[in-house]
């Protein structure tokens, strides 16, 4: 997702502009493209339902991202209470792009969910600390903390690679 725009747009324009990137980033964060797609589609559905209100905001994209992130985190929390789905997800677990060594991907997946999410939003969607903070409902400082922790964990592997 690019820099937040202040130009009023339609939900369809927003969809074509951001859907792929947002699903991609959340898929990396969650380890599941399907989970990410569900969360982002839910967010767009909510966006359509509330467009009358949200279109007046300068921050429709920020709203969209926040809702998608919340949906993803809710889904992840609910996985524990839906064991059957967990099994399905594990079976369908998408593999990362082959260019990345599996060790790096494995370590990244083992990071706490908050760190993965912060990294995905910051690096893949290229958001600022403040925009990531807004999406995650935490402070920019906390985002910085998550990024630092993730980098610390991954640094040895990245240097080797």
């Amino acid at each position: 997702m690019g820099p937040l725009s202040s130009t009023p747009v339609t939900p369809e324009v927003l969809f074509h502009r951001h859907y792929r990137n947002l699903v991609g980033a959340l898929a990396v964060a969650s380890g599941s493209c399907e989970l990410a797609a569900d969360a982002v589609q839910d967010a767009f559905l909510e966006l359509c339902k509330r467009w009358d209100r949200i279109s007046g905001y300068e921050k429709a994209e920020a709203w969209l991202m926040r809702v998608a992130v919340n949906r993803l985190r809710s889904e992840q929390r609910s996985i524990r209470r839906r064991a059957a789905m967990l099994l399905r997800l594990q079976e369908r677990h998408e593999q990362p792009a082959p260019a990345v060594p599996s060790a790096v991907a494995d370590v990244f997946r083992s990071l706490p969910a908050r760190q993965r999410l912060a990294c995905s939003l910051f690096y893949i969607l290229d958001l600022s600390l403040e925009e990531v903070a807004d999406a995650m409902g935490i402070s920019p400082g906390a985002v910085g903390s998550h990024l630092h922790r993730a980098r610390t964990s991954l640094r040895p592997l990245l240097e080797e690679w």
Partner: protein
Amino acid sequence: MKQDELGRVLRQMVPPVDETGIWEKIESQAKSAHREEGNGKPKKGGKRLALRFALVGMAMIVLVALGLGASALLEHLRQDRVVLVITEDGVSDGTTSDDTATEVAGGSPAQTHITADSAFANRRWSVAQITDNNVMDEVPVAQGNLLAWRAHDTHDYEIMTFDFETGTTSQLTDNQVDDWEPKVYGSHVVWMEGERGGPWTLRLYDTNTGATRQIADGTVRYGQYQLKGDLLVWPHLQDGIIGEVKVLRLSTGEALTIGGGDAEVRDVFARTDGRYVLVATETGQESWDLLLYDTASGTQEKIAGGAIVGDWRYLDDRRLADGVVVWSASDGHDEEIFLYEIASGTTTQLTNNEVSDIEPEVGRGYVLWARSPLQSDGSSSASREVILYDRRSTHEQILGQGYGRLAEDGTLAIWSEYPQKAEELWVYDTDRAEATNLAEAGSQASWPDVVEGRVVWYRELTGAQQPSAEVMVATFQPTAGTTSREYTMIDWLPGQGTKPMYVAGGPALNWGEVATLKGRAVSVGEPIEDSEAAIPLDETNRWTSMGMQPKAVYSLVTITNTGNTALTYDAAEFELEGNGSGSNGRTYSDTTSDGHQTLGRGTLSPGESVEGAVYFILRDKDIPVKVRLGAAAGATRVVFASWQ
């Protein structure tokens, strides 16, 4: 695009995403939802509007019965929906237009049965802009007389403070690296210093000595440190070791280390109340242990473990306060709120429902958390309700939507729809059950915090050409409770009418404590149910005609005349509020059924005291919540007893 190594790797991990047919599916579902709304149940707004008209109709009937006209009703309605508007000159009474009134009614107060009372709001909140310098002054925090924030000097962030007592602004740092996230307590300010991205060094400033010292070098986690009482705590970051928590006793310099060396620990957070240290350690994916360390005895106990929600928000440092620890954990279906009382060692589950309750904070007598309804597939929705739970009455209420925080002394709670750039910032006075919007139209409130008697935030003006953020402080005027401070005289007389009127508007009193007011000291004992009380038949009939059974309770009240002139008192100047009903004090008989003398109307000479029972009526299943002091006036509108 960020070019470092991790960014490059992550972008390569992005899987291919197919969006074919997705938009059409979403559009179709959205249209279907709109159709259902149109054909099915009335829209929310319409429902509220209908309810509003119904309430207006009922109010008209009541007021006409009282001999008042439509203009009085409209005035009353306007007063109920007043929004505070902050101008350059300070706070003004921003009585709203009809449109704005609807917006407010549909927003927080009316939905949650909170009244926003203009007559008091203007007197009890003063809002000040602390900075005015066209730079980014951000994330203010306050405690006692000290306010601290980070300010961007066009190169990096520096730490600033403001002393509420002297009005002095000070710059604590002046260097070429970032100084961020200050926290204050007493005479100390702590913050982190370093290049953006870390590592971070912790620095501590003492306003008494003017000295700054380095506490930890490069081993601090961004923002995760807490200063309270004599203790400074932080999770210690060091390669190869995760799970250590460092504790520094400021007065002696004594350093403690809690935990560490456990290979299974994946993450750790720490909170303190000045004596205890709460350590949360992640021992597996979504699995946490909560350990409570007592710095006085050096002992440690595990108070909970398992599926505890691990979102330890940076600013969320009120998990441990008032001798209580709160957390959110899964019950196998959704998340519930739990509370541990340190003194008794007992754990209580505060919620047991089918929705997700998360991110609790505790203040004296209250717990606040976020609640997200579950979707049909079992996941929680994006909407968040802010819940305030009264530990004494076990009553919970919805304050509004969004993100909430609770002052440690339990007197104030705040919430906004977003933590950052929110159009409205609401503050709720738990003593008076009143909500006020502190945000100025045309500005956005970010990262608000609430402490005893104050709300702090920073605002950015919408549409401003130059980015600028300024620190704002709203200060609560002398208020409720049972402190020794004097209350200023109320200049709000009961309204016009032909019957005696009793107006509650004074401070709420805690059971058994002594409130020192101007010219008098008052204490109110905890209400006791009196099932044998002689409630007059006509009063019983009035309640039963409304489908309710009355219940008589009484409080033992003591009033002392501390002034120099005679003091008139009356049972009716006390008002008891329950969960869903309330009443002014009454005198049914000379004594209660268990023999206490009752209190009616009388006069006290200077220095004289009176003790007696005051009866109140509640709905039969109601629980007493608080007693307020009000005013009692006769038919001639002469106030013969009021709090001052």
